[in-house]
């Protein structure tokens, strides 16, 4: 067993309604920019906001089903897996999300 155990910590980010449906917000967590997405059916996702292709801000893209299209060069990133869809390659980090009493919580590794 590792000498330092990794402790998961839930961070309260915002109210669910702060994130527009089929839209996203940005948040700085642990030194990185995280994109918080809410799709048409109200599911919330959190991923590293930088596109693996040319570091485009994914939060600025168009959100459709469970994916977002990067605003710079139209890579489509799956919000569940963080992986690029279709022929493209690349993957971004995803974060666990919980919705509690109308709030969005993101699980960070501390």
């Amino acid at each position: 067993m590792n000498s330092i155990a990794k402790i998961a910590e839930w961070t309260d980010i915002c109210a669910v309604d702060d994130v527009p449906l089929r839209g996203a917000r940005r948040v700085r967590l642990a030194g990185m920019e995280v994109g918080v997405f809410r799709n048409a059916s109200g599911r919330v996702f959190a991923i590293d906001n930088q596109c693996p292709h040319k570091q485009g801000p994914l939060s600025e893209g168009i959100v459709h089903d469970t994916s977002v299209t990067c605003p710079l060069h139209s890579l489509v990133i799956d919000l569940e897996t963080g992986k690029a869809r279709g022929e493209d390659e690349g993957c971004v980090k995803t974060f666990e999300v919980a919705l509690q009493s109308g709030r969005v919580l993101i699980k960070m590794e501390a």
Partner: protein
Amino acid sequence: MSRQKLVIIGAGMAAGRFLENLLEARPDAYEVTLFNAEPRGTYNRIMLSPVLSGEKSYQEIVTHDDDWYATNKVTCRFGERVASIDRDRKVVVGEKGEVAYDRLVIATGSSPFIIPLPGHDLPGVLAYRDADDTDRMIEGCKPGERAIVIGGGLLGLEAAAGLRMRGMEVTVLHLPTTLMERQLDPSAGYLLEKELSGRGLDIRAGSNTKEIYGNGKVEGVRLDDGSDIPASMVVMAVGIRPSVAVAKEAGLEVNRGIIVDGMMRTSDPSIYSVGECVEFEGNCYGLVAPLFDQARILAQSFCGDDCAAFVHTETATKLKVTGVDLFSAGDFAEGEGREEIVFRDAQRGVYKRLVLQDDRLIGAVLYGETADGAWFFQKIKEGDPISPDERETLIFGQSFAGGTPMDPMEAVAALPDDAEICGCNGVSKGSVVNAIRQRDLKDVNGVRSCTKASSSCGTCTGLVEQLLAMTLGDAFEANAVEPLCGCTDLGHSDVRRLIVAQELRSIPAVMQELGWKTSCGCAKCRPALNYYLIATWPGDYKDDSQSRFINERVHANIQKDGTYSVVPRAWGGVTNASELRAIADVVDKYEIPLVKYTGGQRIDLLGVKKDDLPGVWAELNAAGMVSGHAYAKGLRTVKTCVGTDWCRFGTQDSTGLGIKLEKLMWGSWSPAKVKLAVSGCPRNCAEATCKDIGVICVDSGYELHYAGAAGMHIQGTQVFAKVATEEEAIEYSAALLQAYREQGFYLERIYKWSARIGHDKVVAQIVDNPENRKALYERFLYSQKFSQSDPWAERATGGVAQHEFKVLEPAE
């Protein structure tokens, strides 16, 4: 052998069809003279409603133009009334002289019935019947003012819907308590009333008009219950009556209409009659299908061919108000020995009622879902007994007949060969399929020109497409247009057409009704649909910002590092000291790393952080500057040279015209970006000949250019018009922009649109057809009412989309 002299009085749809059939079969048998009281040849009168509503232009509904009459050697006497017929001498006496005939066809049609109410002759009281009436209605349209339509039948409701689409407030007064009581039962009438009320029509069924009042022109209508409705236009659409005056005066046998036999002969063996003016076995006809039948029969008998005599048949009705699905056929009154099957779905606004007598289907009323209309109509005409099993699922339509639901292709495949595809033109499935096979047709246009199917009201276009697909198989697929994106099989053209035809007013409605394969679209189709909806329903559609590309969503251009660029508008490329000072201050305050002149005579501030955008905008706004839309699929810049104010070669005020054009067009969304330039002389310093729209000023006026490009593709402009005045230059340019806005595919620049539809067609719409140009211009002005508010001000101080410009702060 000398040719027989044939004279025709009237050039309506029946006469037009008769001539066409006759001349196709026997081009040289007759020497034809055609009289028409209207100063024009035959056009598709059924389609006047879309002309009224602005969905089509008059030019698009002309079926026989001057060339056609010239090619077919028809002597046209349009705009000339026939005074009398001298049967003894066999001559027709026109206002401008006589013509002898061997055979005479009377096709005088019908005239609108005007109720002789007090005030019915005031200016502003109009009928709705022909192209002139339509013109008068369009001219009299004053958006925001009220029009009253007396009569809630087919024509009245189409008129009301058209006027409403032109921006008028509309009240419909209808004497009976049910709208379209001749075609609908009260339940369907109620649903129709509800639907139309929901679209802002004020429907008053059971209203009796007492008088029309006004001083020198219409000012309103008083009802017999004492209520008073002010209005600036009154349209009477209470019905039509056969025009029989000339026939009656000539001593022909006339009752309600001109009496004819099954071969369309009147009581004089040399005189025939077709169309709405005839009466056959006590029936007069107002719908086009039986009239085309009469025309065909008469043409065949003139050719000496054997043909079956005309018989009275049932007709089916469809209302041509975009977005209202309504179908009725046969006899649906209640009565002894009649049974009915009714289906209602209040949630979806669907109502279906079938009337059976002696186990046979005799009538059908469908509202909200009319796909099975043709199938029910076929059953009514066949008159075959309905078995008890069949009866169980009859109301569910063709898909359920036989137990398993069919897809549309199977449904079409299952139709018998004599099933009617096009009700207007009486074209059966067999004729369409034979034409496709024998004449090697590949598309709907081919079928239209060979068989006439889908050429009148167009509601059967889908069926014709399915027949093409069924007959050609993969060959048709190969012809298929490129889909808009992976979410649909439809191309841009179909999507645009269906948004209008089915009156789809939101992205979810488009996706639902057009069968999108994904739940929420994608980054390709959403911006396209958002544009199509905003362009189609200005003032009504609410912009969906989440379906816009980032640049249009936050009104700035995203850069490679995620910062933005900000370009304030410089009207006509002109600026001044206080604007420049404000720009300098904002650059200092927000530490904007780069200031650069663009190619479009504006200043670009690059490297602005997203969260700083509202602050930057607020300061630019305070100095009087607004967004330059440098990020938009819309009007970008209007580049100008200095013109007569300064330049020794200038011929006109090019800067002034550029500013006027920019003030008129800013804020408009379009399929792709639109850049303009105005040069004050042919030296062309503003480089107008590579712009989407360019103006070159010359001594005699303005040369109007378009379809230039200077990006990946380089292309000089084409001249589309030369005009004398600045007003014309503005009207023509705005009309062109509107035509492109209505017809362009998303992301298709003007030069590509023009290449796709053809330069001639662009010129025909804008230059050759002043009416159409004015209508386009009006529609542009109307749409601009809703687009000219500065998006920067809305966000900087107006509180719009605040979430865009703030990073979230996690709670502690």
